[in-house]
Structure formats: C-alpha cells, structure tokens
C-alpha cells in the first residue's frame, strides 16, 4: 500500500473496498527528540455502506499513553472518502459505556441525520447503534465528530473528503489530509471542571512581577488599568499546552507524522482543525501555500505564508515543494505549544522546527474599544517581549533539537518563493496578505498595496476623519447595557464591547506583525457566484457573551440551559446575521445544516462557510439562506464554551409537509 494518499489510488480503492474496513490501530511510540518521522497514512473508508464503531482505548502520543475515544480503534477516526452524488449509509455502533453521537460537520444532511443529541436525534445509547443514511450533495473537505459530552476532546473526530461529481477545479497531483487537534491526558470533563474551579488553571503564560521587572509585556500602568477591569490579557485559549499535546493525524510533534511527495508535484493539503479548544497558526517555513478551499467550498486561489485556522474550520491549500524536507507547523495561538509534521520527498527526512514565537496578549481593541486614534493599539508583547517565565510545552524544545538556525532559513522570500509563486501574474496584492517586495502590475503603478496589512490603516483613517462626532457621545465603558440592548445582563456577562469593529480584514490575533503574508477572511472569495444573491429580508444581532472569571459562556447573555428560546427562521428566507463578540476571546461560531456567506465586501462571490471565527471585540456579518427545514444546532465550537452554554437551537419552519 502506498504510504501516501494518492488520489487515484484511493478512488480505485474506494471502488473495490466497500465499507467497514478498519486499519490497524497500532501506533508506534516514538520517544526520541528527533524522530525520523512516522509515515502512516490515515485509514480510509469508502463506498455506500460504512461501519463505524465508537470505542475507547489508549493512544500513545509522543510516547506517552493517554486515554482516548475514537472510531474503529483510531484517532483520528478513519478518513471517509465519498463522492458527490452518491448515497451513503453509515452504521455507527457505540461500544462505549456512555451515550455517544456523530455529527457530520459541514455536510448538508436532513436534520434527523445531523447527529446532535436532543436536537436532531435522541443520541446513540451505550452499546447500541444508529444508522445514518443520506445523499452526498456536495464536495470538499469536511469532518465528523461526537456531539456528546467531551468525547470530541478525547479523540472522537475524523476527516471526510468528498470528491466532486465533475472535474475538480483544483488541479493537484497528490494530497494529504492534515487533522490538527489538541490532546490531553486529562478527561474532557476534568478539564471543564478545572476551568470552572479556576478559570486560569491552564494558563502558565500570565504576566508576572518578573516580567514587569524585565520590562516585558504590559507596563505597570497598563497592568493596573487591566487589573482594575479584572481582565487577564494573557487568556488566549483557556486550555493550553500545559496539558495539551498538539497533534497532527494523531501524532505528537515528537512523533513527527510525515507526508511524502515527489518534488515538483502540486500537493493538496486538506487542513482540518478538529481541536476542542485550540486555534492554530499554520505555516510551512520556506513553502508558500495557495489557499483553494475554505470549509469545503472552493475559493479563488490566494497565496499566503501563514493562516490561522479556527476550531472546526477547514482550509485546502496547494503547495509545490522542492526536493527537500519541510516542517509543517501548527502553532497554538497562545504559543504554548505546536503541532508538527514533516513534508518530505523520502521517509526519514526532516527539517528544522521553528521555535515557538512569544505569545501575544490581548489589547484594548480586543475589548471592542474600536480603532481609537489616540490610543496605542500595539500589542505590548510585540514591542516589549513576553514574560520570561512563560511556560511552553515540550514542543518548544524541538527548535534546538532539530537545529533550527534562525528566521533566515524560514524566510519566504517573495521574489523567489518557490514554484508556487512562479505562475503568479504581476499583480498579486492580497489585501491582508501583505507582500513586501511584490511587483505591482502596471495598471496599479503608484498604488502601494503592500504596505497595507488588512484594513487597519483605512479604518483608522476613516475613524479619525469622520467618527469623532459619533464617538463623543459614545459610552466607552466596558459593560454598558445600552451598547447591547438585546443582551440579558447578569453574572454571565462580564463585558459589552462598546465599539465592536469588523476585523475580518485584519490579520488574526497574534499575527499582526509577522514579516510574511498572512491570510485574512477578506482575502477569501468564492470561486463561483453564490447560489442565492437576494438581499436579506431582515437582519439579526447575536452577541457572544461570557465571563472568563466564572467561566460562563452564552449568546446574548443567555445559556442554552437557562433555557434559551430557539432562533427562528422561515424556510427560504435570507437573513443577515451580525455576530458581535463582547468577550476577549475568539469564538469560532458554527451553524449546522447550512452554509452562510460572509459579508466581507465581495458581493455575490462571498466566501461560503460553516464556521466563522469572530475576533475578540470584533464582529462578523454573514448572510444565510435558511433552506433546510428542521432544528439545527448553532454554537461556539470551542468545546468548553459550548458546554458552558454558548449554544442555541435554530429552527427553520415550516417543516416539510406543513403548511407555511
């Protein structure tokens, strides 16, 4: 069997293999600091009848045994390789002693097949089974995971790849699926309990007196101001590398999962963030990535050097590696650890691993204070450095162990950025993906796009030129109900963003100052026109609310358990939804059963997504056509935010057979 996911071979395999075939769960435990790499393709299942068994077992990660829940004995669960237009029957047996479920993330399925206990179906009781059956009406990269308890944290997630019925507009010679995740020796419910007991439990990168004396992070004045607000600017991920090992396809950074390629090939990497809590900064030092798909939907190709993938998102990129090894880095956004894999032309090769960059801290803008001309929005860590006592996990040692020699080795020189760039025409400015030194097209002579990362400048300019009058009357206090009339104020609402801003054109948190291209949401444009280009008939504000001290999370100040009313939609109506983040954490918001179009200035080529990350203090607007009658889950995909109550039922009525 080929050690890589050769697409043709897989398709051939799919034709003959049918379903139910599980590969060996055995995963060797590599403990050497510099592993030669583990070339182990994901077990794959195809066909119209697929059998999945949910079970628990021990998963060795970087040589340490950890408890895990997976499917057919593997973490991640087997890759489901399907084809648009086929029908599939998935017989899921639950061998656990507790109830379970599987949700097909991003797949458009009838609501009873969506797999959310209590909303779409009763769940799969212990030692029983459920038959999912639905037609495959889409193509792209997706995934599946448990929607019960914290099973997703413990490994119950797997990739889905659906080949298009017709020709794939994305040309590639080879592909690899990259499932990023965060794995802990602790059970999911233990992690959640610790957070409830002490919200800062996992954060070992806080500001300290040692940091203050060393002149790092915030100044004393800023610390006092933030202390007065009872806000911890170092809380980026809640759960960190202090317990997590960040894994790729089930392997730790020391295991070093390796993907093979033949030099010069176009390699398609299908990234899936299956983590419970962790957003990752993904990069392959020395290898530009051309993003061709987001959340399973094709986008117009955009080349970048780094992108942030929020929990539950997927991105497909094309790379054209040369005859050398590359390190694939998935750095946790709080920089407490990294996931690492290797792309290499031959087994046993590896490349130096870059060190973990210092963690950022949140700024006033992350509090929804908007772009304020007079206020310094710079991230103090970027200028003053991070706390010297900040702790990172074992993966931080890889840089030294692998002989990283500094940034020069990883610099993606735009002028000679590999063959991936060669075919690019002269005009290559990409909005947020700033590309210093990139030649501008003749028609654009004199326009300097390269100096404009994201929308920052223009926003500031606009604000100072126009907004002062408005701002004069604006209450900038951090918890004024008038700034969010729809929010039920209570102990669960710590702050209300006084001036949330659309941050989709900005580089993601912590990547503001890196010296290479970074993907922003505004860089994404659908490849083909959107299927529904009607104007929304109405709009709807949903506030993302929380209290980091009590570890309470909600929409509009109401937890699902309170109980919360469903969010109602009419079948067929198009609605504009404004997600307003009143907290200082990013929230990847996922709507089941639908794709929505991000309102990021691309008209009828808006990128279509199933999950969108709302930056701290920011807002994201999307248009959605409610075309799937039924009840659907809508929630923050940070597992413990959802579990804490940041979830709603979305209803689309009338149901089939009902009068309108």
């Amino acid at each position, binding site marked *: 069997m080929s050690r890589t996911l050769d697409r043709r071979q897989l398709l051939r395999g799919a034709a003959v293999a049918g379903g139910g075939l599980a590969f060996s769960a055995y995963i060797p435990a590599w403990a050497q600091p510099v592993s030669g790499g583990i070339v182990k393709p994901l077990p794959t299942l195809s066909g119209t009848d697929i059998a999945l068994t949910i079970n628990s077992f021990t998963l060795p990660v970087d040589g340490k045994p950890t408890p895990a829940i997976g499917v057919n004995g593997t973490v991640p669960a087997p890759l489901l390789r399907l084809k648009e237009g086929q029908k599939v029957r998935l017989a899921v047996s639950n061998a656990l002693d507790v109830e379970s479920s599987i949700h097909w993330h991003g797949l458009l399925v009838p609501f009873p097949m969506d797999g959310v206990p209590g909303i779409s179906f009763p769940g799969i009781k212990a030692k029983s089974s459920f038959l999912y059956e639905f037609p495959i009406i889409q193509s792209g990269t997706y995934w599946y995971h448990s929607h019960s308890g914290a099973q997703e944290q413990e490994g119950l997630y797997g990739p889905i790849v659906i080949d298009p019925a017709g020709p794939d507009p994305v040309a590639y010679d080879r592909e690899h699926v990259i499932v990023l995740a965060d794995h802990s020796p602790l059970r999911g419910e233990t992690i959640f309990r610790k957070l409830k007991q002490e919200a800062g439990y996992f954060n070992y990168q806080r500001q300290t007196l040692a940091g203050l004396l060393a002149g790092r992070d915030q100044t004393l004045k800023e610390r006092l101001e933030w*202390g*007065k607000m009872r806000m911890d600017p170092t809380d980026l991920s809640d759960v960190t590398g202090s317990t997590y090992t960040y894994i790729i396809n089930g392997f730790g950074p020391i295991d070093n999962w390796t993907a093979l390629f033949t030099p010069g090939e176009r390699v398609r990497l299908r990234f899936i963030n299956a983590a419970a809590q962790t957003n990752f900064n993904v990069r392959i030092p020395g290898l530009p990535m051309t993003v061709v798909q987001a959340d399973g939907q094709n986008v117009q190709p955009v080349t970048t050097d780094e992108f942030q993938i929020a929990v539950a998102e997927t991105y497909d990129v094309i790379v054209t590696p040369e005859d050398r090894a590359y390190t694939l880095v998935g750095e946790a956004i709080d920089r407490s650890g990294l996931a690492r894999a290797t792309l290499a032309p031959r087994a046993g090769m590896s490349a130096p691993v870059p060190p973990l960059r210092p963690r950022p801290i949140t700024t006033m803008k992350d509090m929804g204070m908007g772009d304020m001309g007079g206020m310094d929005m710079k991230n103090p860590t970027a200028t003053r450095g991070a706390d010297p006592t900040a702790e990172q996990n074992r993966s931080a040692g890889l840089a030294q162990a692998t002989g990283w020699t500094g940034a020069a080795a990883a610099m993606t020189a735009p002028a000679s950025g590999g063959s991936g760039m060669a075919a690019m025409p002269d005009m290559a400015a990409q*909005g947020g993906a700033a590309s210093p030194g990139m030649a501008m097209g003749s028609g654009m002579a004199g326009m300097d796009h390269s100096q404009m990362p994201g929308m920052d400048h223009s926003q500031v300019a606009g604000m100072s030129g126009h907004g002062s009058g408005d701002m004069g009357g604006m209450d900038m206090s951090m918890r004024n109900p008038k700034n969010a009339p729809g929010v039920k104020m209570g102990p669960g609402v710590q702050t209300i963003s006084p001036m949330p*801003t659309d941050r989709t054109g900005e580089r993601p948190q912590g990547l503001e100052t890196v010296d290479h291209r970074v993907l922003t949401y505004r860089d994404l444009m659908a490849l083909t026109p959107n299927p529904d280009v009607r104007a929304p008939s109405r709009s709807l504000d949903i506030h993302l609310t929380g209290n980091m001290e009590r570890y309470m999370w909600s929409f509009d100040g109401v937890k*699902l358990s309170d109980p919360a009313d469903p969010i109602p939609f009419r079948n067929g109506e198009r609605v504009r939804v404004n997600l307003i983040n009143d907290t200082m954490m990013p929230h990847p918001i996922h709507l089941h059963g639908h794709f929505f*179009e991000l309102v990021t200035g*691309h008209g009828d080529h808006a990128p279509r997504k199933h999950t969108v990350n709302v930056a701290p203090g920011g807002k994201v607007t999307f*248009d959605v056509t409610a075309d799937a009658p039924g009840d659907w889950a809508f929630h923050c995909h940070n597992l413990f935010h959802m579990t804490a109550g940041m979830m709603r039922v979305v209803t689309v009525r009338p149901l089939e057979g009902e009068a309108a």
Partner: protein
Amino acid sequence: MTRARSALAASALLAFAAPAVAQDHSMHNMPGMTMPAPAAKNKPAAKPAAKPKDGARTAEPKAAPAKAAPAKDAPASMEGMDHGAMQGMDHSAMPGMDHSAMPGMTTPAQGQQGAQPMPGMQMPADEHSGHDMPGMSMEGVAQTGTALPPGNAPAPPIPTDHAADRVFGPQEMMDARHHLAQHGGQTFYQVLLNVAEYQIHSGRDGYRWDGEAWYGGDINRLWLKSEGEGEFRRGLDSAEVQALYSHAIDPYFNLQGGVRQDFGRGPKRTYATVGIEGLAPGFFEVEGALFLSNKGDVLGRVEGYYDQRITQRLILQPRAEFNLSAQDVPETDTGSGLVDVEVGLRLRYDVAREFAPYVGVSYLRKTGDTARFARAAGEDVHATSFVIGVRTWF
C-alpha cells in the same frame, strides 16, 4: 452573454465611480449604517483628508478602457453621478485582487469576465462593490449578493414544536432534551484550603486553617466556610463553620447568607450571617460578612487577599482580616469596635495548581477594648508567627 459581460463591466465601472463619500465611509465598517444616495451625490467633493493621492491617479486611466460600451447598460440612476468623486477613492483596502491566474486552480470564466478590460489588473466586478459597507443603502449602484442591504421584515414566531419529534417520537426526544440543559446547567464543586499551616511562634506552636467549599451551578451554590486555629497540646482555640447559600449577583460577586457555628474554647455561639464575597477591581479576593448571634450580638468581618505572581508558579499572597464588633461581648473577651487585625504574607510555589507549599509570616494584633481585655487577662495583644503550610484544593 454579451449583455451579462456588459453588465458586469458596468458594475465594475460603477464601483470605481461610486461616490467617494461612500467608498470612504465604507472603511468604517459599520453595518447598519444608512446612507441615502442623494447625500452621496451632493457631496462629491467631500474628499477625505486621508485619501491617498496615488489611488486617485490610478483610478482614472483604469476606468477609461472599461467605459465605452458598457456605460450604456448602466442603470439610469447612474446619470448625474459625479465621476469626479473618484478622486477620493481609496484603494487601500481592496482585498483579494487577481486571484484568477494562480496555480493550482482552474478558474471558471464567468466570475472573471468583468475584469478582462482592465489591463494589468484582473478584478471581478464585485470586488469593487465590495467596498460598500454591509447594510449601507446606496441607490443607483448595481449590487448583488452580500453587497445588498437587508430589509426589515419581522422575525417569524418562535416555534413550540420540535422537529425531531416527528421522526423519533415525542417521548424519546423529550428524554433526549436533557442534553440541552447540560450546556450551561451542570453542577460543579471545589474544596479549597487557602491556609493550612503550622505556626511557629514564641511560646507554644500552633496551627491554623482557612478554607471553603462550594457545590452548585453558575449562579446558585451551597458554600461551606471554615476557619480556626489552635495550639498544640492546648487544643482548639477558636474555630467556626459557616453554611451559606450563595447567589451570584454580578459578574464578580456573590451574595451569601446562612448560619455560622462557633467551636473552640469560648462559648459555642450560633449566628445568622449575611455577606458578600467576590473579586474586586485589581483582582483582590475580598469578602465581608455580618453575624448576628443567638445572644443578639452583632459582629462583622472583612478579609481579603491578593495573589502576586512573581513567576508563573512562585506566588506571594498578602492577606488581611479585620474583625469588628458592635458591642462588648465579655464572654468572648471581645470589645466593641475593631476587635483584631491579622495580616499575613505567604510565599507559595505551585507545584501544581492544586498543591502549593508555602512559607510565610503572620501577625495578629488585638485592638481597642479587646486589647484591653487581653492585657487585663494577662494575654498577649499581638503575636507574630512564622508559618509553613500548603495551599491545596480539589
């Protein structure tokens, strides 16, 4: 097809020609803002101070090639639009230009047609309309999809049925809906001994504890608190246990009420108690309580501590406790006013968050009438102790 192409090109042109005011304001990123077209038309010269000159220069030649034919197809309302407005155009925020010819993708033609006439820059028409803000109403500009403003239709009623009932039966789904109450409705607990220590002072060594335990949900919890101290071979000096109902009243504070029972050498008083506990600005853990004894005496207590992280694991905790009394309570040698003050400084090391050994110093000073009573009884009015202990929780 030609017509479609023209329309696309026209909209591209229009987008270029869109009023500077509108383009410029689009940078504010304020969905929901309404800007009627007349306002835009009337103020074509309202150039923003911050507009880049380069952008204006570039705009004109680019617009020109696309102009000729498609202009006829432009919507009527375009007439009268001042192309001079282009002067103020700000290209700075144009994202995603020219994705068409990148490797690895076979781009379908239709999305790109509008862009063809523009030399050196391939830009689908909608990119320009993309400058318009979500929710901004601009008549006279061809827009589609997400560029369109939303209407104000009412939301539908909230349904009372459950879709899955029809498939799996109401009973089974009702049982399953307990899952929804799990999302935010779970109960938790914590048992915390903030102080559990051996006290070394002149004379007899002693021991001391101060801890709490809680059980419940986010808002309502049962709390138990206990503190006490004693000397070895002399036994328990003073001790108390409180059982409280705790209700979260804001993001940081809990209102607590219940009973307190005293133990130790003195009278075994019982108190009704009401207090407040929480996190004060500056990350100070504070609590204050009033106690009404079964003898009618009123006592009060204020205490607080602060965790100063020196490193991630080395933490200095200053702590203070003030006891007050509304009256003399001779049975407990308590005088009215401030009864005593205890301050402490404990340096701990978080081996784990749940297990942190510490060393420190504690100073107790009886004050006012209480001190007078103590002196009269031949007792010390102040005591300094070196302490060694463990802060622990589970």
